[in-house]
C-alpha cells in the first residue's frame, strides 16, 4: 500500500515535468535539455515569492496561489525568451544539434540561477506543513502530497481537454502529426512553436514551484531531474502526452518499489526499466510507426 501511495506521489511530480518535455518534443522535435533548469527556475521563483509573502505576514493560504503564479511568470518570461532568442535560429538542423543547443542553454541557465539567487539554499516549508497530514494504516502523509497529485491530475486533464476540444489544441495536434501538412493548410507553425515552448516551460516551472516547499532549493537541483524526465518520456514514447502519464506511473511505481524492497538498486532501477522498455518497444510505449527512408 505504502508502495502504491509513494509511487503515485512520485509519479505526479514526474508527470508535471515530463509532460512539458514530451509536448515540446512532439511539436518542435527538440529534446529540451534545459527543461531541468526551467524546473529549477520555477522552484527558485516560487521559494522567493512565497517566502516573501509569508515573512511579510500575509494570509498563509494564499501562498499556494503564489506558487502557481511564480510558475506561470517563469514560463511567460523564460519560454518566449528562449524560443525567440535562441531556438528559432537553429530550426531545421539535426535533432542532435538541437539537443546540444539546449544543453548549452542548460549550462547558461544553471549559472544565471546562481547569479540571480546566489549559491545558498532557499527554504519555504510553510505551505508544506500548513495542511497537516493524513494517515493510511500506520503511516502518515502530509496533505500537501495530495495537492501535488491533484495538481498533476488537473494539469493532465486540462491539457487533454485543451488538445482535444479547443481550436488551438487541435492545431497543435495537427503540427505534432504532420508539420509540413499543417503548415500547408495555413497553420502558423512559428506561432504554435512559441505557444508550445511557453506552455512546456510553464509546466516545468510548475513542477519546480510545487516541489520547492518540500525540499531545500539549491543550485544543481535541475541536473538529475532532466535525465529522470527523459526516462519517463522515452518509456512513454517521445512526443506523446498519454505516454508521459503512463511513463510517469511506471517510473514512479518502480522507484517506490525499489526504495521499499531493494534500496541498493533505487538509483538505476529507473534506467534499467527504460532500457528494458526500449528493447521491447524501440520507440516507446505510445509511438507511431515511422516510414522507412529509401
Amino acid at each position, binding site marked *: 500500500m505504502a508502495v502504491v501511495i509513494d509511487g503515485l506521489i512520485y509519479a505526479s511530480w514526474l508527470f508535471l515535468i515530463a509532460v512539458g518535455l514530451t509536448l515540446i518534443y512532439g511539436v518542435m522535435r527538440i529534446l529540451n535539455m534545459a527543461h531541468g533548469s526551467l524546473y529549477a527556475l520555477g522552484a527558485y521563483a516560487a521559494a522567493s515569492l512565497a517566502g516573501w509573502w509569508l515573512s511579510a505576514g500575509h494570509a498563509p493560504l494564499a501562498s499556494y496561489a503564489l506558487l502557481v503564479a511564480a510558475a506561470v511568470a517563469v514560463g511567460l518570461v523564460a519560454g518566449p525568451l528562449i524560443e525567440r532568442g535562441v531556438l528559432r535560429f*537553429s530550426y531545421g538542423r539535426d*535533432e542532435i544539434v538541437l539537443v546540444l543547443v539546449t544543453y548549452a542553454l*542548460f549550462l*547558461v541557465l544553471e549559472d544565471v540561477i546562481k547569479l540571480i539567487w546566489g549559491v545558498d539554499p532557499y527554504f519555504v516549508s510553510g505551505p508544506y506543513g500548513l495542511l497537516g497530514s493524513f494517515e493510511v494504516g500506520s503511516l502518515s502523509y502530509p496533505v500537501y502530497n495530495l495537492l501535488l497529485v491533484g495538481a498533476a491530475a488537473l494539469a493532465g486533464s486540462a491539457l487533454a481537454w485543451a488538445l482535444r476540444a479547443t481550436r488551438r489544441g487541435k492545431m497543435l495536434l495537427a503540427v505534432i502529426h504532420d508539420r509540413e501538412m499543417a503548415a500547408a493548410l495555413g497553420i502558423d507553425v512559428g506561432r504554435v512553436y512559441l505557444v508550445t515552448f511557453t506552455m512546456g516551460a510553464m509546466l516545468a516551472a510548475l513542477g519546480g514551484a510545487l516541489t520547492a516547499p518540500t525540499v531545500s532549493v539549491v543550485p544543481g537541483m535541475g541536473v538529475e531531474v532532466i*535525465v529522470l524526465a527523459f526516462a519517463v518520456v*522515452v518509456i512513454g514514447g517521445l512526443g506523446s502526452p498519454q505516454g508521459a502519464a503512463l511513463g510517469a506511473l511506471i517510473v514512479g511505481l518502480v522507484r517506490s518499489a525499489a526504495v521499499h524492497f531493494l534500496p541498493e538498486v533505487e538509483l538505476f*532501477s529507473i534506467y534499467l526499466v527504460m*532500457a528494458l522498455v*526500449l528493447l521491447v518497444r524501440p520507440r516507446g510505449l505510445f509511438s507511431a510507426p515511422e516510414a522507412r527512408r*529509401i
Partner: protein
Amino acid sequence: MSRFGRTEALLAISAAALLAFSPLLPKWALFLVTVALAKGLVVLGLLLLMRAGLVSFGQGLYYAAGAYAAGIAGQMLRISDAAAVVALAAVASCAVAAVVGGLLATYRGIFFAMLSLAFSMILYGLLVKTSALGSTDGFNVAIGTVAGVRLPGASARTGLFALTVGLVFLAALGAHRFLGSHLGRLAPAVRDNELRVEYLGASVRGVVYLNYLLAAGLSGIGGALAGLAVGHIDPEMAYWTTSGEFVFVAILSGSGSVAAPFAGAIAFEVLRSFAYEYSPNTWQLVVGLAMLLVILFLPSGLWSLFTRWRRAR
C-alpha cells in the same frame, strides 16, 4: 592510399613537438595537456560514431569503465605499470561494449543517444552504491612504473605524459588509416542511406557495432589515462554531464581531421580552466555561450577555421 601523407606528417610533428617541449612546460600545463589528450581520445571515438550518424550521450560509461578497470587493476590486483593498466582498461571497455553495443546497434538518432545515456547512468548508479569501490567518493590511483621503467616522484607525471602522447599518436594514426579503408568509408554511407548500404552487400549493423567497439576502446584508454593523471577516480566520470561535455568537445572540434578532437579538447580544457579561474560561479555560463556561438556560427567546428585559412592561402 597507405603512403605517408600530410595528416601523418602533421601528427608526427605535433607528437614530437609536444614531447620536445614537455620539459619546458610548467606542471599545471603538463597536467592540463595530459588530461585534455586523454579526453581527446574519447572525443575521437565519438567522431567515429558521428560519421555513422550516431551521437552517444553515454560515452561516460566507457570513460568510467576504463578508469575503474585501471583503478581496480592498480589497487586490488597490484598491477602498477601504467601501460599495462591502460591496456587492461581498453580490454575491459571493449568487453562491456561488446554486450551493450549488441543491444544498441539497432537504434538510431535520438533513441541511440538516450539509450546510451541510460546505460551510462546504470553504471553510475552501480558505482555510487558499491562501497568496495568507494561509493560517491571513488578512490585514489597511483602510478608505479611506466612501460616497465620506474620513475620516482615528479618524473612519473612526465612519464605518463609521454605515454599519453604516444598512445594518442598511435590512436590518431590508426583512426586516420581506418577512415581511409573500405570498412571506415562505410560509416558515412550508413549515415546517408542504410538501405542502399544493405543493397551493396554490407552489414549496417556490423558497421555500427564495429564503430561502437572502437569508440568504447578509445574511451576506455582515455578514462584510464585521465584517472592516472588526476590520481583519483569517482562515479562522476559516468554521470551524464561528463558525456555531455564529450559531445560538446566533439561539436567544438568538428570532424575535419583526426587531429581535430585533440586540438578541440585542449582548447576546451584551457577555456574551462580560465573560466573557472576567473569566475568560479559563472564558468558554465562562459562555456555554454561559447558552445552556442560555435553551433550557430561554426557548424563544422573550430577545425574549419584552420582548413578555411589553408584554402584561402
